[in-house]
């Protein structure tokens, strides 16, 4: 069992990080913390992908002329993660700009408070 855990360490850590990010996104009322949780979640999946692309003793895929193809690691997860990182930074920027607008309006970063205030606003107008 312990050996298996050691063997799958990257996967396990990424699952753990995913859970931490997930629970933060769900539970923490602070918007900035929520965004951090979101980032944790995304990077954990990237770690998962990057770990699965690795091969024992493989090299980075900079292909030399006439070399054996089996000596490199799998390039596909790398490409996927690159795409994912860019997507993550875009959503983070969008999230942060929304947060800023909300703070300007409601003077709070606490989503529960903001939701309450917004609800009040609706009932009155």
């Amino acid at each position, binding site marked *: 069992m312990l050996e298996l855990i050691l063997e799958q360490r990257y996967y396990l850590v990424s699952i753990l990080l995913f859970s931490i990010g997930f629970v933060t*996104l769900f539970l923490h009322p602070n918007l900035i913390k929520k965004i951090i949780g979101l980032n944790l979640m995304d990077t954990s999946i990237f770690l998962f992908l990057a770990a*699965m692309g690795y091969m024992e003793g493989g090299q980075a895929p900079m292909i030399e002329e006439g070399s054996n193809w089996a000596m490199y690691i799998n390039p*596909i997860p790398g490409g996927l993660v690159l795409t994912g990182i860019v997507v993550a930074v*875009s*959503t983070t920027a*969008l999230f942060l700009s929304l947060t800023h607008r909300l703070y300007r309006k409601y003077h709070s970063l606490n989503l529960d408070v*903001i939701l309450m205030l*917004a609800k009040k606003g609706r009932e009155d107008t």
Partner: protein
Amino acid sequence: MGLVYNIPLFSILLVVVSGVCIPLFRNGKHVIRFVQIVQLLVGAGSLFLMVGLSSLNESFTYQLGHVPAPWGNELRAGPLEGLLSFVFSLVMLLAFSGSRESLISDIKPHRLGNYCLLMQLLYGTLLAMIYTDDLFTAYVFVEVAAVTACVLVSAKESGRSIVSAIRYLMFNCLGSGLFLLGIAILYVLTGHLLFSSLQQAVEQYLLSGSSKLPLIVSALLMTLGLSIKSAQFPFHAWLPDAHASATTTSSAILSGLLLKGYLIILMKLMVCIFGPFVMVSSYLCDLLLLLGLAGMLFASVAALRQEEVKRMIAYSSSAQISYIFLSLGLGSQLGLLAACFQMIVHALTKSMIFLGAGAMINGVHGHYWGQLRGAARKVPLGGIAFTVGGLSLCGIPLLAGFSAKYCIALAALDADWQMAPALFGLAASSVLNAMYYIPAILVIWGRTKPNQEEEWKPISIGLEQKFALSFLLFCNLYLGMRFGLVRDLIEQGIYRFGSFG
């Protein structure tokens, strides 16, 4: 290869490039025209594609680049894809022309260009979701849809709309996280991202009987992610707020099209990757069925209590989306057909209701029921659109909603134990629909107080708006009376799409 085969790529690129070009324009009003022309072109192209493929009775894959499919990307199109993209283009075009005035009045002129840009990107994304044949491409475009739609929600710039946008974005990010994790697990297991190769690999796993748990979990994660994104019942909290605070165009497109884009991907997952074995044997279909049933009832009950017209329609959307989940959950070919038909009917009907409601709201400047009393007399066409749409969703015969319900009922009759709950849900939710739509219709046609008599004169609405509303009305009646043609087309398309059940 004839020119027909290039239409999917042409339409996606044309839409995205036209969107990207918008910052080069100076005047916002020209931008709307430009966007409409592009939508008209793409719609015509899709119609051509649909007719051509349907008469040839074939589907094809389109290789992107010099390398064939498992290595490169590819697009896939058949009659069903052609039909869907035609309907989407139509709804997009009509939503733009039907709410042109409220668009110009709701959004500040210097933002109008960028708003149209994001709309256009969203439209290109939806097309790409329809045509894609690759899991990761689907993920990327799902993200584009999330980013663009978020701003469409917040375009009106009130505090409420920004709150709803941030909730929308949160749910979406959660959904894409789960979806991406599902993709990652599936990729670790199979090493493929293309639908057809994935299907083969999954079949091999099923034959050998190993790694069943990871397969099921990945299917579950992806289904969960997509149902969060499409505002299915337990995750629908963001939808009413998002609708109530968005402009009419945004609402029509958000509810009419965007939610369907995710469902199309879900359908592709079910049919093209996992197939009936994983879906039915692992109770995933039953999960979808239960989600659908719960959503139909809960969302309808919630709609009863709403005091704002748009919130009510939003809850009704959530209920209608649940119909699609229910028919997907039946796990049969007929269920798939019913789901597609409901998708098309709902896209046309819901955008009509939103446009009608938007016209009335603009007419009386208020969106609570109290303020809307007698609104339909002021804006007769809007009132008629709302009425016909509402009655159609209640399942009055000769209207489109009835034929969709008929298809779902047919599919349910074919199933075994799912028959009773599905039919019960259908009947109960029809009654609930009637319970909130009919009072609403009575309110909008009701008489105002006698001292406001002079305000009864109908307000004239723009020619374009009239045309859009009448066209949608025509579509609704047509689908209600003669749905055979569309149904055959979907059947042909699904047959080409892959066999299920």
